[in-house]
């Protein structure tokens, strides 16, 4: 029983980080209808950026997250027009080229990181890993607790931006109907830049959280891309509340499989569930995603 409660708690704590990882991607799909194949590489790059920053500044990794966010927001903001160029408008294979371009980008980032950092594992040193709390008989590692709280706060801030500000209103207008939004005076191009910037920024920050909890190297992108796709698809692509449910669900699946089966089955379970959901209900478990 205690083992069950402990793995439930662990799963939920990791789930908090997975939410941050997937929110941006789901929003980007909702607004731009683009699936970002480079999502895992943005995450990996975020972790490495934090590694360089903490190494230079001797700060706690959590304190450099604002810098990482701003940096990657900028990268995404200025990369998006290229994405718009290949996927928007009257071009051959418009629907395929978004996938293709982000795939090419992921190769550049992965190869570049391999050149710069080699294949070794790294981790972000944090004083938080010395802290441990107890909740009755349950163990709560400090680093996991703090990243969960930070992730939760970030999610709330993100939802506030989206549902309670005028920028958020415009983002939702574009997501709902691009043409009408344009007719009503929304600058669709700017909103797209902003959304992709937010996505890249959030994903990179999730990378910092991941780097505080686990080791990472330039090739971890694929694994986290799987997690992101899993969460975004199960939640229903473009449907944000679904992301929260699915991320916590994935955290639990991961933690139960590790506790009761064999960690080797995690990827198999995730891939199998992802595939089955796509076949049975491509719009997500709650059937609220976009076509």
């Amino acid at each position, binding site marked *: 029983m205690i083992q069950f409660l402990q793995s439930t708690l662990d799963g939920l704590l990791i789930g908090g980080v997975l939410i941050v990882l997937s929110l941006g991607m789901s929003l980007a*799909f909702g607004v731009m209808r683009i699936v970002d194949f480079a999502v895992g590489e943005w995450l990996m790059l975020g972790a490495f950026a934090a590694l360089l920053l903490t190494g230079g500044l001797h700060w706690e990794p959590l304190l450099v997250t604002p810098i990482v966010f701003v940096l990657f927001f900028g990268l995404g903001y200025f990369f998006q027009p290229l994405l718009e160029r290949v996927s928007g408008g009257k071009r*051959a294979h418009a629907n395929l080229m978004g996938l*293709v*371009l982000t*795939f090419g980008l992921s*190769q550049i980032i992965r*190869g570049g990181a391999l050149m710069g950092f080699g294949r070794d594992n790294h981790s972000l040193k944090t004083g938080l890993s010395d802290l441990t709390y107890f909740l009755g008989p349950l163990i709560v590692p400090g680093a996991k607790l703090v990243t969960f709280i930070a992730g939760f706060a970030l999610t709330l801030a993100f939802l506030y931006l989206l549902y309670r500000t005028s920028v958020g209103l415009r983002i939702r207008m574009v997501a709902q109907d691009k043409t009408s939004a344009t007719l009503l005076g929304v600058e669709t191009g700017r909103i797209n830049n902003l959304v992709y910037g937010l996505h890249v920024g959030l994903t990179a920050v999730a990378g910092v959280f991941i780097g505080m909890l686990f080791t990472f190297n330039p090739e971890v992108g694929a694994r986290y891309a799987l997690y992101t796709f899993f969460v975004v*698809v199960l939640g229903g692509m473009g449907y944000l509340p679904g992301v929260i449910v699915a991320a916590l669900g994935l955290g639990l699946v991961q933690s139960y499989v590790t506790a009761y089966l064999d960690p080797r089955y995690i*990827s198999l379970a995730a891939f199998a569930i992802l595939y089955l959901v*796509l076949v049975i209900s491509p719009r997500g478990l709650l059937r609220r995603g976009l076509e």
Partner: protein
Amino acid sequence: MSRPALGRLLGGAALLLLLILPNLLPVFWMRIATETLMWAVLAVSWNLVGGYTGYLNFGHAAFFGVGAYATALFTVKAGVPFGVSLLLGGGVGGILALLLGLPTLRIRGAYFAIATWAFAEAMGQIATIWEGLTGGSEGLRMPALADNRPFYYLMLGLLLLTLLGLHLLVRRSKYAYWLVAVREQEDVAKAMGIDVFRAKLMVFVLSGIIAALAGGIYAYWITIITPKEVFKVLITDNSVVMSLFGGLGTFWGPVLGAAVVHLSARFLWLSYGSDVVYIVAIGVAVCLVALFIPNGLLGLLERRRKGSAFAPQEPEASR
């Protein structure tokens, strides 16, 4: 001399050269030539689905890997002669494609891409975990053959057979129009009475059989097969990149793409001694193609001449 006659002459000369190539090249370059032929087969078979119907299969490695394992298992565990087990391996690939295609070809766009990717990764995981059958990450060992030339001719034969099949399919039958109709406007195609699903499933199964045959030949050639090797993402990635590079939905594009991409990859590897440079170079190349020549190298050439019927047309408006 008229254009078709010139083309035939050049084609004949190229074929002759390919047939006598093993007598001209040293062993090392034979290996690279065989690899290039294999990539051409994989790219053409990927393009059959991705280029002609617009369904991006991001799990092409599943067919290759299953073909390799099936062929190896029939040879090693059941003692079937290689030629027969190769055909059986191709059959297993076809059945897998049928089973995968039946549910998966009903979903569209990005969802299809993600679903096939997840499926292929799951297959790789199963091959790793199911140690009793596959030997796990240690892999399976095939009897080795001292002479490498048969594999060159096998790959060449498979490529020619594939191209012949493609020629009959897209240049001599109504299916070509069906497939392009599916790619350009699937709903309209359906409304006009085209059995869209049958057309998609047919090419998907064909593509699976071809990739599985390539996997089977590869297994016997390389003699030690591991899940990491035959299910690796690079197989899918290269098939996509080569098709794209040469020209999606064109007849010769993927062959051209395979030759250009693989030979430059080997060149980079020889000059820098690592595959890391290659990863970056391929990423840059893919981005440039997506940004500037979405119809690939052949698209660039075709534009100067008359537009080919099946080269992707600029759509009237995006959906």
